[in-house]
């Protein structure tokens, strides 16, 4: 367990600049349309050819939401027309047919996650049908650590639904809360009571789910220390196994729904930091362990234990205990990570549908990682999960002289060293307890694309 000390406000302010969240490296803006269907087929074939082919993580994207949350930056479609779910599932099953056939039968599935949108826009019977369809087409692990997880909007799911999901095999759930403060809820168009949230968490536990996560967001309009403090107190009462506390990124030009949010009501940088500080103080005082990059967990949660033994990993679905698996993204806008490639499905429904109706794999863009990309991806993964860079191991693995290869990056890192965020020792670079909240700033020093002057500017959310 590593203690977390908040850097002083002045320091945080200086490092509060936009940056990627590094759920992947390279990040999605580097994907290009030259990577298409054949490239994906080749990537899967190559991954099947590994001496010990990697296990699989499946991601299913459900794009629909019954109601628009104004802060949302996800790919989603607002509708209350439940018939759209059936049409979507018909295409999804085609995609599963096409994709599953590419993988050797002994590629074991160790993780299945439903994200959105709102996965529970599908009713429990439909969700069970998707799980069963996947189970019939892929080889699911019989091991007890198979993760079957779903993001739930507590406003649209009943305890009875949750019981059905448990029966269908779901063993993890993640609930969006963001903030219980009524004024904040009104401003982001998401009215959700403490009671209905607690009831869903209770139902998840009753259904035997081994881990429940709650998402909070700081930096939302009208947020105050009092209001957010009350939210934290209630969430701590509910005591989820895991908590994510994200910083709201106001990028209305990029995410249209955010235009509904009046920037004048957003907390300023001082208050943002105070809100984050409050969350860290309250959660650590309540016994939560800081995992890294916005995530907290109870000390006996698998994530916290995995971090302690160095077994933590990170992919598009966030932190996971499963060692590097190949990630298969299904559904509109879903991202896959097979072997040394990334690929993404079309972000709009019609293009995704047309590809499947034509019997084509719906690949919109992607990229193949070269050796430099893989080296930096390894480095950033270690940083995000273990808060350190294993210099010696990387030198050995990639046959490089680290100080020479990363001379530029180390020069960029020096101010962070001077500010006490990072220590550089022979063989290992480590984030200090102060630096652990600024992992992405450390990672940004090693991002080739971010530091390449010729690249077009890419917009990212703020670091803090």
């Amino acid at each position, binding site marked *: 367990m590593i203690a977390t000390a908040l850097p002083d406000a002045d320091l945080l302010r200086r490092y509060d600049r936009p940056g990627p969240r590094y759920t992947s490296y390279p990040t999605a803006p580097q994907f290009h349309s030259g990577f298409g269907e054949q490239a994906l087929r080749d990537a899967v*074939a*190559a991954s*099947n*050819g*590994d*001496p*010990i*082919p*990697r296990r699989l993580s499946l991601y299913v994207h459900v794009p629909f939401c019954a109601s628009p949350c104004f802060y949302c930056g996800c790919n989603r479609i607002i509708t209350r027309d439940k018939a759209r779910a059936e049409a979507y599932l018909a295409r999804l099953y085609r995609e599963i047919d096409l994709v599953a056939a590419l993988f*050797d039968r*002994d590629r074991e599935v160790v993780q299945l996650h439903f994200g959105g949108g709102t996965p529970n826009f599908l009713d429990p019977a439909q969700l069970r049908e998707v799980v069963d369809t996947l189970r019939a087409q892929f080889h699911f692990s019989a091991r007890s650590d198979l993760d079957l997880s779903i993001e739930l909007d507590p406003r649209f799911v009943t305890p009875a639904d949750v019981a059905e999901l448990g029966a269908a095999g779901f063993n993890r759930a993640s609930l969006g809360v963001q903030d219980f403060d009524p004024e904040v809820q009104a401003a982001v168009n998401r009215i959700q009571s403490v009671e209905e949230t607690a009831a869903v968490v209770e139902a998840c536990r009753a259904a035997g789910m081994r881990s429940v996560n709650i998402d909070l967001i700081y930096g939302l309009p009208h947020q105050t220390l009092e209001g957010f403090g009350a939210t934290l107190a209630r969430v701590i009462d509910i005591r989820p196994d895991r908590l994510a506390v994200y910083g709201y990124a106001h990028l209305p030009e990029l995410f249209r729904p955010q235009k509904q949010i009046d920037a004048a009501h957003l907390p300023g940088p001082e208050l943002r930091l105070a809100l984050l500080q409050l969350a860290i103080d309250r959660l650590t005082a309540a016994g939560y362990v800081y995992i890294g990059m916005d995530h907290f967990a109870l000390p006996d949660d698998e994530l916290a234990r995995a971090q302690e033994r160095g077994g933590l990993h990170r992919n598009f679905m966030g932190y996971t205990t499963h060692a590097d698996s190949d990630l298969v993204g299904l559904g509109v806008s879903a991202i896959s990570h097979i*072997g040394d490639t990334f690929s993404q499905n079309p972000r709009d429904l019609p293009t995704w549908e047309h590809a499947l109706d034509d019997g084509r794999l719906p690949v919109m863009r992607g990229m193949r990682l070269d050796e430099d990309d893989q080296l930096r991806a390894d480095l950033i993964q270690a940083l995000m999960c273990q808060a350190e860079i294993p*210099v*010696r191991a990387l*030198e*050995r693995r990639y*046959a*490089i*002289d*680290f*100080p*020479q290869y990363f001379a530029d990056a180390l020069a960029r890192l020096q101010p962070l060293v001077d500010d006490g965020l990072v220590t550089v020792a022979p063989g290992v670079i480590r984030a200090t307890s102060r630096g652990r909240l600024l992992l992405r700033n450390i990672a940004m020093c090693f991002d080739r694309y971010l530091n390449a002057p010729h690249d077009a500017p890419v917009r990212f959310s703020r670091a803090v």
Partner: protein
Amino acid sequence: MHRCGSPVPSSLRPAPSHGGGVSETTFPRPNPRTLADDGDTLRFCSTCAFSQACLDEGMDKRALMDLHVLVQHVGPLQPGTHLFREGDPFEAIAAVRAGTVKTYVVDPDGREHVLGFHLPGEVIGLNGIDGDTYPCNAIAIDTVMLCRFSFPKIAVLATRVPGIQKHLFRLLSRDIGRAALLAGDWSADQRLAAFLVGLSRRLAARGFSATRFALTMPRTDIANYLRLAPETVSRVLRRLQQEGVLAVDRREVELQDRARLEALAAPVLRG
């Protein structure tokens, strides 16, 4: 490459050691010593399959201008390119300079049988010597570079340079020995161990790391060659990994307990 006592040119000195203790190159990563060194009129390519035979004869390259003119550098060939197919007229043998070449035949039922994998410094096409045509197919598994030797010309040269003839026979018998290696009634563990130990020795002989290398061929090819199911190859490797004998990361293998692997492989390699 050079006779005892002659000064070692700078390009053949061991590459300067990097800070991380990197001293050997992991196959198939390019190594300035084993790939980039193309040789010139005075020096052999570092992966040359014949240089040792010539040097054993007391001939350096200057004395081998004849050989030089009959060698043709081919490549780079892209993965999946056929070097020759079964039934093609036999005209040349080729030495691999970089990459991996697979040789295979297809039986009347259309099933592929992998005959072998050829690494840098090794020669392919030898089994064509017997007849007028190649008796198998040869395909590049990754990016491959070759030296092509016109066979009629090298045969003439062999009559003038007995060492070359001897070397050809040696290569031939090694080829036959390797094929016989898997004929016995060996367990999956023994087959796989023999395969890995064999690769390790062959790569080490060409200056690559003996303990860390990539399996450039897909597991279906390994399985086919070892006459095992692909799932079995993975299962055995996974178990050996759990037992700390080796570590596998994607295509890369690290032999951690060589003694154990050698012991497993011993009966096969002796046979």
